[in-house]
């Protein structure tokens, strides 16, 4: 395959990935959450007590504590997260999902695509996971 044809095929696959992402995000309501807010909700739904805080989220997302702090604040203001004093360290706060936060996660746009993927053959799913991981790694390397 010549260089131009390879570039065109790569652009086609890139377009497919982009369209899948857009389809998932288009399902959001106008007042719905941004991708980073969904990531934060997913994180607090699964993390332990000692990492349910700003530092934990910051490490999970790979961003600054200031940025994670703003994400948490926006979710607290929407009633989806709440902070409670830690039982072991009075100076720190443990962040938890509220009932509304748990309800919101049931409508996580990720669920739609996960349901579609669940219907795939295990071998195809495994192969897709490996290929997407390669794409993810290449994009991370390109950013460095």
């Amino acid at each position, binding site marked *: 395959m010549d260089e131009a044809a390879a570039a065109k095929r790569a652009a086609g696959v890139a377009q497919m990935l982009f369209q899948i992402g857009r389809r998932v995000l288009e399902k959001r309501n106008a007042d719905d959450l941004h991708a980073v807010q969904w990531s934060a909700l997913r994180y607090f739904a699964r993390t332990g007590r000692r*990492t349910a805080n700003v530092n*934990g989220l910051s490490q999970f*997302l790979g961003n600054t504590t200031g940025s994670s702090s703003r994400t948490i604040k926006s979710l607290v203001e929407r009633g989806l997260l709440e902070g409670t004093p830690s039982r072991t360290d009075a100076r720190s706060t443990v962040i938890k999902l509220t009932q509304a936060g748990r309800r919101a996660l049931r409508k996580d746009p990720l669920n739609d695509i996960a349901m579609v993927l669940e219907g795939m053959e295990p071998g195809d799913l495994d192969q897709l*996971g490996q290929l997407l991981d390669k794409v993810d790694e290449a994009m991370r390397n390109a950013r460095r």
Partner: protein
Amino acid sequence: MATILVVDDEQDVADAVKLVLQNDGYFVLVAKDMASARDILSTGEVDACVLDVWIDGDTGLDLATEISRDAEPVPFVMMSGGGPGRSLESATAKADALGAAEVLFKPFDDDELLAAVKKALGK
């Protein structure tokens, strides 16, 4: 008594995890590198693994990939505390895709570790 393999190159973490699991009645083996982990896994006597994501790079996830491709994969729990190159979010997604029973974010409490291992063993 279930046999648990703990794979972590940090001595302190491996010792702490081993102690918690032993106190709960498990037989615990520790590997500090990938080669030892593979040797122990090849005996077929491991019921579940607790793997660190970062063992000299990404190799914890590489080992998880190898395990997941076995005909009868050993259930595993990933432990992660951040590291070079890959965000925790990305590592967690990969661990989930490989079928991790649970992903524990360091530092975690003893009861969280025990619950994750029980989940891996299907209890």
